[in-house]
C-alpha cells in the first residue's frame, strides 16, 4: 500500500523564538528551520511500515515555500521514495493545507496518510482532522501505536487520562504523538542518494485549490513574564510563606 506523509517546515524546536518589535509576528530572519518534530515521527512511522513490508511506497508532501524542499530532501534521505512540494508562500491556514492534501489524496490514492498532530509554530492541531472530514476517511489522532491488519488499522491514541484504541477502515488518516516512535537520523550516504530521488514541485492552483483564510492576525506579543520570586532557606520558611504570605495551603 501507498503511504502519504505530510511534513512542515518550521522554526527549529531548539530556537528560542522572539517576537518582532513591530508586533507583526515572530522573528524568522536567520533562524534555523527544520522539519516539525511531529512530522519527523510521521516520516519515521511511514518508513518503518515500509521496512516491515506493509507499505510499498512512501510519498512525502509539503505545502510551503520553495525552501521547504530542504525538509522534503530530509524525508527522502530518511527513506521516503519521492516527494511533492506544493509551493505556497506566506501563512497558510490549516483548512487550506487540508484542501491541498485532499487533492493530493485524490491523485495518489494512498491507503494511509500520516501527519504530525500539530506544528510547533502555530500549534493549531487541525490539519489531520480536517483532511479526515474532506476525504470522509476515519482518523486516529495523537497516535502512540499504529498496527495495520489487512484492510484496517488499529490506532492507540493518547487521550486525557490514558489511552484509547480505535479500529479504522483503510484508507485512514493518522496523526502522530510523541511516543509513537523515536525518529532516526539520516546517514550521509542516504543524504547523497536523496538528491537523486524525484521531487516534484507544483502549486495549489495546479491542484485546483484556492488558498484562503478567514483569520487575520492583528498582533503578536510576548507573553506576560513571571518574575523570579524569593529563595527560602528551608522547609520551615517555605511552609510559613505558603501559609501566611501566599495563603495557598
Amino acid at each position, binding site marked *: 500500500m501507498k503511504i502519504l506523509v505530510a511534513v512542515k517546515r518550521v522554526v527549529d524546536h531548539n530556537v528560542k523564538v522572539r517576537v518582532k518589535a513591530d508586533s507583526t509576528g515572530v522573528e524568522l530572519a536567520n533562524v534555523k528551520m527544520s522539519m516539525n518534530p511531529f512530522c519527523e515521527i510521521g516520516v519515521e512511522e511511514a518508513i518503518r511500515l515500509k521496512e516491515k513490508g506493509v507499505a510499498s511506497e512512501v510519498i512525502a508532501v509539503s505545502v510551503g515555500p520553495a525552501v521547504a524542499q530542504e525538509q522534503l530532501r530530509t524525508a527522502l534521505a530518511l527513506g521516503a521514495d519521492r516527494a511533492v512540494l506544493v509551493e505556497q508562500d506566506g501563512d497558510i491556514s490549516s483548512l487550506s493545507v487540508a484542501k491541498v492534501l485532499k487533492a493530493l489524496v485524490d491523485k495518489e490514492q494512498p491507503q494511509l496518510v500520516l501527519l504530525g498532530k500539530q506544528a510547533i509554530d502555530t500549534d493549531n492541531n*487541525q490539519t489531520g482532522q480536517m483532511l479526515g472530514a474532506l476525504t470522509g476517511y476515519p482518523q486516529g489522532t495523537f497516535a502512540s501505536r499504529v498496527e495495520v491488519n489487512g484492510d484496517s488499522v488499529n490506532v492507540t491514541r493518547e487521550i486525557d487520562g490514558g489511552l*484509547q484504541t480505535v479500529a479504522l477502515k483503510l484508507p485512514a488518516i493518522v496523526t502522530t504523538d510523541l511516543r509513537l516512535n523515536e525518529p532516526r537520523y539520516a546517514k550521509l550516504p542516504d543524504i547523497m542518494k536523496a538528491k537523486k530521488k524525484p521531487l516534484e514541485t507544483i502549486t495549489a492552483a495546479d491542484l485546483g485549490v484556492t488558498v484562503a483564510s478567514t483569520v487575520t492576525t492583528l498582533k503578536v506579543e510576548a507573553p506576560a513574564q513571571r518574575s*523570579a520570586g524569593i529563595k527560602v532557606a528551608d522547609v520551615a520558611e517555605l511552609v510559613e510563606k505558603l501559609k501566611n504570605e501566599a495563603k495557598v495551603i
Partner: protein
Amino acid sequence: MAILVIAEHSNAALGAATLNTVAAAKAIGGDIHVLVAGAGCAAAAEAAAKIDGVAKVLVADDAAYAHQLPENVAPLVAEQGKNYSHVLASATTAGKNLLPRVAALLDTDQISEIIAVESADTFKRPIYAGNAIATVQSSAAIKVITVRATGFDAAAAEGGSAAIESLAAGADAGVSSFVGEELAKSDRPDLTSAKVVVSGGRGMGSGENFDMLYKLADKLGAAVGASRAAVDAGFVPNDLQVGQTGKIVAPDLYIAVGISGAIQHLAGMSGSKVIVAINKDEDAPIFQVADYGLVADLFDVVPQLDAAL
C-alpha cells in the same frame, strides 16, 4: 446570535472543562446552548442543564455516539452548528479530536486554544508553545473555536435550569469502531482542574521515588504531574506530563520537584498562581519563574515538607 458549546463528558458525568468553555461563551455573549452527544448520557445532559448561563441543552443519545467517535459525531455537530454564530469545544483531547473535523465539514477555519475573548470575533491564543501570544480576528460566518480551560474561570456548575431537547441521531459512518481503553485510575483530583499540583522531573531519579510525591500530594489534596524528561525516562506514564506537548495546568499552587524548567515545561504551568521550585541546582531556569525557590536536595526536603504539613 447564539453559541453552541460541545459538552466534554463521559456519558455518566460532565467534564469539568465544559464549565470553562461555557465561561468563554459568556465572554463572547449570546444565548448559550450545550450539545451533549453520547449514549446513555442523560446524567451528563442534566448536569449541563444546571450550568449557570446555559439556555438550552441539546441531547443526541445513540449507540453511534457511545465513544464519541469523530466520524459519527462531527456530522451531527456540523449540522447543528449551521444555526449558530459560534461553535465552541474544550481544548481537551476529545475537543481537539472532534472540532477541526466539524470546521472542515462547515468549510470554515478553526481558531485553536483561545485564552481570552477580546470581542465576538477577536481572540487571543498562544503560538510557539506559549512563547508568543497572537491576537486573531475571524471573518467567518460560523466561528469554530477550541477553548483552553486555564484561560477562563469556570462557570458555576449550579444555578441554571435549561430546557433539555432531544435530537435525532445520524447514522453510524461505519468506518471506525472503539476497541478499548486503558484509563489511569486515581483517587486524586484531575491534573488539569486540581487546585494544587505536585510535579516531579528527571531529578526524581526513578519511578519508585515518585511515591514520596504521591504521599505529599495526598496530604495537600493535590494532583501529581511530571516533566517530559521524567516521562521520557519512563518514571511515570505520559498522561501525567505537564508542558507544551502534555497538559496545560494553572493551579493555585504548583510545586516543581527536581524539574529544571525547560521552556517546554514552563509552557504548561507558568499560568499557575503560586509556583514553588525545589531543585539542588541553583541555576536551574525553574527558579526564574518560581515565587518561592528552595535550593536543596529533594530527597532531604520532600520528606521534611511532608512532615511539616
